[in-house]
């Protein structure tokens, strides 16, 4: 944990203290800090925005009711997001999805995967460059950071993420969209570090491919 994280965790614990005393402003601050992220992570699991909003609302009720039981063994954020994923799964059960995240991850990882289509590499028996690029990555014609192309590029990325299998979508949402460290993602989702990494690998590879498809 670096200094900034330590500071922010001390600040969040103070916020929880005030919340225990019934301070509405403390609640507003916590809500403002976490609700957008909670909505996105919820949305990466449940099927509609309105279900995601219900799950997040439910999460905040869970946070308030669980305040006295929170012992500070994890960060405040990890604790809140674990409440979220529990609620989302309970809610998902209503949508006939009861599989724990770890099992869902194992299912996804049992599928074969290549980051790039195998046809884009030279065959194993190539006399000089086996398994090297036959069709190398194409340069992106529009710079994705260019102002005009930017919004469209982001829309593409969102669409590619929306199309991913559930666990890959959740992991890339938390890691790359929310900027979480891997350890915390593993804690919240209950998946191993190795599996989290493979899920991230698959997700990022798919999104890069989608961009290559559209930007060349």
């Amino acid at each position: 944990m670096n200094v900034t994280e330590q500071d922010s965790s001390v600040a969040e614990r103070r916020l929880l203290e005030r919340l225990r005393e019934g301070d509405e402003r403390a609640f507003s601050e916590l809500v403002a800090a976490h609700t957008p992220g909670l909505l996105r992570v919820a949305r990466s699991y449940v099927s509609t925005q309105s279900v995601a909003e219900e799950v997040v609302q439910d999460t905040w009720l869970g946070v308030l009711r669980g305040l006295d039981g929170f012992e500070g063994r994890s960060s405040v954020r990890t604790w809140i997001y674990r409440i979220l994923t529990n609620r989302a799964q309970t809610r998902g059960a209503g949508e006939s999805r009861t599989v724990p995240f770890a099992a869902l991850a194992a299912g996804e990882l049992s599928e074969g995967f290549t980051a790039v289509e195998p046809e884009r590499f030279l065959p194993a028996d190539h006399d000089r460059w086996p398994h090297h690029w036959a069709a190398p990555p194409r340069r992106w014609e529009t710079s994705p950071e260019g102002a005009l192309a930017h919004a469209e590029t982001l829309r593409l990325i969102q669409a590619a993420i929306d199309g991913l299998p559930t666990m890959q979508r959740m992991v890339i949402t938390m890691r790359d969209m929310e900027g979480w460290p891997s350890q915390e993602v593993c804690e919240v989702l209950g998946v191993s570090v190795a599996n989290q990494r493979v899920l991230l690998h698959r997700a990022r590879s798919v999104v890069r491919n989608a961009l290559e498809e559209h930007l060349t």
Partner: protein
Amino acid sequence: MTHPPHSRPEMPCAEFVERVTDYLEDSLQVDDRARLEEHLGECTACQLYLGQLRQTLTLAGQLVQDDVSPAMHDELLTVFTRWRQER
């Protein structure tokens, strides 16, 4: 390609694209990391691939985060008020 006996086996591009996340996550064994970096130093196509992957994740971090709608904020405050009364 032949290698002197002390040299590590070369990393082909097809392996590079599968290990690049392990590289970015700093979870490669020392040997594999050296093989990967050696390959990267020589292969402009894989340099391009890595650059695009980095760009992809930077862009993912720029996806707009919606603010909480006023309606949702109000509902949450209702939840809070009810909770405070319950205590």
